[in-house]
């Protein structure tokens, strides 16, 4: 399949230490988030995807290209790593320009493209300064500019929002979304789960080097049968609503919100619950809002891995 990022039974061991084990993935276009605590294998998976490390076993292909073919791989892949080191003595502009020159394009084109990339990450004013004098956030942005500079089809971003202020985060998220909307593959690792939740089309949940779940977050949540779905309802008569809902067999638990205008429910069958709720709403109870309370990445991760390993 030349339109996917494929991992086939991939394992990576660093001596006797496990990096990732028996990973099988097929990543489609859009924003895919790798989620897991430190040491779960997120960076290893990204390094494997970009050929920085070789798999001990298995095969990886990025849109049909082997990862041991950098000449072709990095025409379509841009990787913003977590490594916070740069070639010595380069300015921000020289860093991007040199990177582009390595791809073999002309000096004029490299210069133009480098400035475009620097503009995209809002670093024009600092471009002529040495990277050694950059703040953490600026170094993060120049790494992003390097990954974006050649307009790659696949963007691999290891903790791309680290060190960025809220405004810059919003700008970067918009950038990732625009890339994904244009048909790119954006692979993001992040430990800030609510951000992952907001931007991801699909997630890959990792724990101790294993992929514990993958897919769209709602789909993953629905597949977790042992944990009932939680739903938060804002309404005018929560007690009455709770009593009526408990008449059905799929309700497990309900608690009234302390302001008396909300209800947190647990159900083992969300689909039938929503049907019943529609019926009740038609019978006079005014419902302001209904929102799933646990189909976010954090909840799913807690259910799958357990509280002690969750990274908040």
């Amino acid at each position: 399949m030349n339109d996917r990022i494929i991992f086939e039974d991939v394992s990576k061991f660093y001596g006797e230490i496990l990096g990732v084990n028996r990973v099988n993935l097929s990543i489609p276009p859009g924003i895919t988030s790798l989620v897991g605590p430190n040491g779960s294998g997120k960076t290893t998976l990204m390094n494997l995807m970009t050929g920085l490390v070789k798999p001990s076993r298995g095969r990886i292909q990025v849109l049909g290209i082997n990862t041991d073919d950098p000449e072709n791989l990095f025409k379509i892949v841009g990787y913003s790593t977590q490594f916070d080191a740069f070639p010595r003595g380069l300015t921000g502009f020289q860093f991007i320009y040199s990177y582009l020159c390595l791809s073999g394009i002309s000096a004029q084109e490299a210069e133009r493209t480098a400035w475009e990339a620097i503009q995209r990450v809002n670093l024009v004013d600092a471009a002529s300064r040495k990277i050694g004098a950059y703040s953490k956030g600026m170094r993060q942005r120049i790494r992003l500019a390097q990954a974006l500079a050649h307009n790659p089809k696949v963007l691999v971003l290891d903790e791309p929002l680290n060190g960025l202020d809220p405004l810059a985060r919003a700008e970067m998220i918009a950038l990732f979304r625009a890339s994904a909307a244009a048909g790119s593959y954006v692979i993001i690792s992040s430990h800030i789960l609510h951000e992952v939740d907001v931007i991801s089309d699909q997630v890959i949940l990792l724990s101790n080097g294993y992929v514990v779940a993958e897919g769209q977050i709602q789909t993953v949540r629905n597949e977790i049968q042992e944990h009932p779905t939680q739903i938060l309802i804002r309404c005018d008569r929560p007690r009455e609503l709770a009593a009526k809902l408990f008449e059905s067999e799929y309700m497990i638990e309900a608690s009234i919100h302390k302001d008396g205008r909300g209800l947190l429910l647990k159900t083992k069958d969300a689909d039938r619950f929503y049907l019943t709720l529609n019926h009740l709403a038609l019978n006079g109870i005014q419902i302001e809002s209904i929102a799933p309370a646990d189909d976010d990445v954090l909840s799913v991760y807690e259910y799958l891995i357990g509280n002690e390993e969750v990274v908040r």
Partner: protein
Amino acid sequence: MNRLWWTQVKAVIRLELKKTFFAKRGLWIYAVAALPVLLFIAYAVVTSNQQHRSARIAREGEKPLSYQDLLAVKPGMTKDQVVATLGRPPLDIHWTERRPTGPGAFDEIQHERFQYSDGQNDLFVEFVGDKVEGANVQDAYNLGEDAIVFAGVFQFFFLRLAIFFGCLGVFMNLFRGEVLDRSLHFYFLSPVRREVLMAGKFLAGLLATCTIFVTSEILQTLAFLWHFSPRARDLYLYHHHGLEHAAAYVGVTILACIGYGAFFLVAGMLFRNPIIPAAVILIWEGINPFLPALLKQFSVIYYLKSLCPVEIPVSPGTPGLFALLISNADPVSSPLAIIGILVVAFVALAVSSFQVKRMEINYTTE
């Protein structure tokens, strides 16, 4: 090599040259390369002063002397005979020696030293009493002898130490230095074949070391020739193969950079600690004269020695092992030596090429 690869090689060279030439940790390489230049400059300054002194003594003499006049003085001649032959000495030093002959008794012996010069060479005549005890002619300079000294410095310091350690410093850091700086991923994330990257880095290292050491070699030659008269220089350069020798030394310097560079490039990929391969290669190169003929061929110095234009003569009485080190008992022809070095370098680069493809970015284990 296709056009894209060549463009990429040039981009790598541009980046690497900047780092190699201006790296603080590489400053010692300039110092090592400058050392023989300073040595020859110091030698030239001292010799030049001696020449001026000889010229002054010749001017102050009673009559102009030739080299043959200086050789005319023999032990046993009287002071008057010497003065009759060479005139009154421009420099005359005398002192009295009190030689004990018994308890509390001394003989007073009169010593005198005359110094003459023909403007270039000096004659020292030692008198005891009235008789010449010794007459030594000191040649102010001798291009033939100086050329052998130059060859000795080139072979035993410049080739075996300066270029050897200079190449170690430059080539081992091409990959190893970036792993330590944690910046190698910059290259590994670019659309460049690893072999092309290696070729670019090797050529950058070669350009840097050749620039540094060929410049040093040229400056050494200039310093070496500086104190000679223009006539002596012309004679040496154009009639006694001086120009050919200078070109040969430059050629050997370049080949040494290629050979040692290739060795240290692969060593930088295979070893974490540069001291271990450096010591192994240094010992291997050092024991080369004592190795069997087949093993000799797997070293760089074996071929370089054969290409050196001036052979260092082994003086009678030199200890056997030392004589073996100095002499080139088993030389190869120049074309074979050049091919030999290139083959050794090619083999080392082939191993590097294999190794660079297997390299992974795993800074945490470094």
